[in-house]
């Protein structure tokens, strides 16, 4: 049986990838941010997942605005990173698990989540950087990976409540997979930040910490907010934090909180790492 051994949240900002590529992780600006990943990395070494499902949003590498699926699942055996026009050096490709992906797709559709299936899917920094931050850089990645993309770019985007429900359906899908596979789910993006407009540069530490506390132990709390309310508080790009709820929904209600790390600012954002043990 597939087993969800836990969930982790992570920022996916491009600057994280640049810091890793340029060997800056122990520089004063970056040290505290990256040091806070160490307990998450140690936990991953201990529990040894076979596969990670990365919940992220594409920023205009795989999906243009001609067709914008609300939820899209990679259903391939390989996922390539590529030039995004942002000066990030493409990484080695990632190995997927097409059979598991198609099982998830079938189960989700049966549960009335009519997900877009992708047999070709380029993965951008949103997918790549959390894996790099948690596993380091590799030519052969030590873990398989499946991308689950959520539209947080072109509104209307799904609500926090919908993301939590998707997570619950994803959890059921994985539990019903007959092969032994140890899965960790990564909820990426956020936290508060706004890149655009005269309001660019906002960070709300108190809101971020409240989101972290509640998503860890009482994720329904987050569903009280409309997307407009989240944008008002956390910024137009801070809406990404709703993707954490997909991860959280897939785990047990009483999953154990092993690690909480928050740092601000990093680049333009507040950044949070939660490690939740589902065993």
């Amino acid at each position, binding site marked *: 049986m597939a087993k969800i051994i836990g969930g982790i949240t992570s920022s996916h900002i491009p600057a994280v990838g640049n810091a890793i590529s340029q060997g800056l992780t122990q520089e004063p600006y970056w040290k505290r941010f990256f*040091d806070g990943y160490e307990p998450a990395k140690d936990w991953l070494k201990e529990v040894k997942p076979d596969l990670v499902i990365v919940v992220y949003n594409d920023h205009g590498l795989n999906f243009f605005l001609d067709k914008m699926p609300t939820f899209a699942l990679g259903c391939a055996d390989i996922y390539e990173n590529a030039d995004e026009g942002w000066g990030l050096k493409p990484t080695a490709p990632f190995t997927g698990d097409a059979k598991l992906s198609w099982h998830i797709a079938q189960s989700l559709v049966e549960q009335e989540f009519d997900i877009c299936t992708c047999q070709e899917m380029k993965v951008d920094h949103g997918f790549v950087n959390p894996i790099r931050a948690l596993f380091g850089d590799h030519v052969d990645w030590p873990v398989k990976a499946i991308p689950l993309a959520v539209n947080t770019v072109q509104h209307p985007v799904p609500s926090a409540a919908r993301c939590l429900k998707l997570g619950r359906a994803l959890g059921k899908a994985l539990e019903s997979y007959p092969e032994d596979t140890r899965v960790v789910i990564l909820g990426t993006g956020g936290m508060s930040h706004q890149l655009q407009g005269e309001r660019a*540069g906002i960070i709300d530490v108190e809101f971020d910490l409240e989101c972290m506390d509640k998503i860890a132990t009482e994720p329904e709390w987050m569903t009280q907010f409309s997307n*407009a309310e989240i944008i*008002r508080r956390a910024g137009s790009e801070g809406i990404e934090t709703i993707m954490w709820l997909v991860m959280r929904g897939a785990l047990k209600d009483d999953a154990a*909180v092993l690690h909480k790390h928050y740092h601000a600012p990093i680049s333009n954002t507040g950044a949070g790492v939660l490690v939740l043990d589902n065993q």
Partner: protein
Amino acid sequence: MNWQKQDYDDIPGTYVFDGQRAHPAYAINKLLYTFNDEACRAEFDADPAAYCDKMGVTGEYKEAVLTQDFLGLLRLGANIYFLAKMCIPRGVSVQDAGAAFQGISTEEFQQRLLDKGNGLSDILAKRGDYWNG
């Protein structure tokens, strides 16, 4: 018919990228999307006006591209992630762009960001259950 009002419309200094922006700005965003490709970036650099013509970007959209008016492009409906594909290869980081949106220097913008982290260690210590370095 007018575009439907949204709950986020009154958030100041914020251009939520929805249908009202995406629809009229489709051509400019498509132009920006081509910048994933190095060959397209080079073709644009060689003759920006011709590249706009080729991509069907005209009028005030073309003018904003040629003058690198990033706030103007944003207001016209360019998506920030797509706009970054134009900014970053020109040496304009998202922080430079953020500063430009506000009419302040990048150093000032960065300092305002750094100030957001003031007292963080104490805040986390008070909460007690956070890793704190």
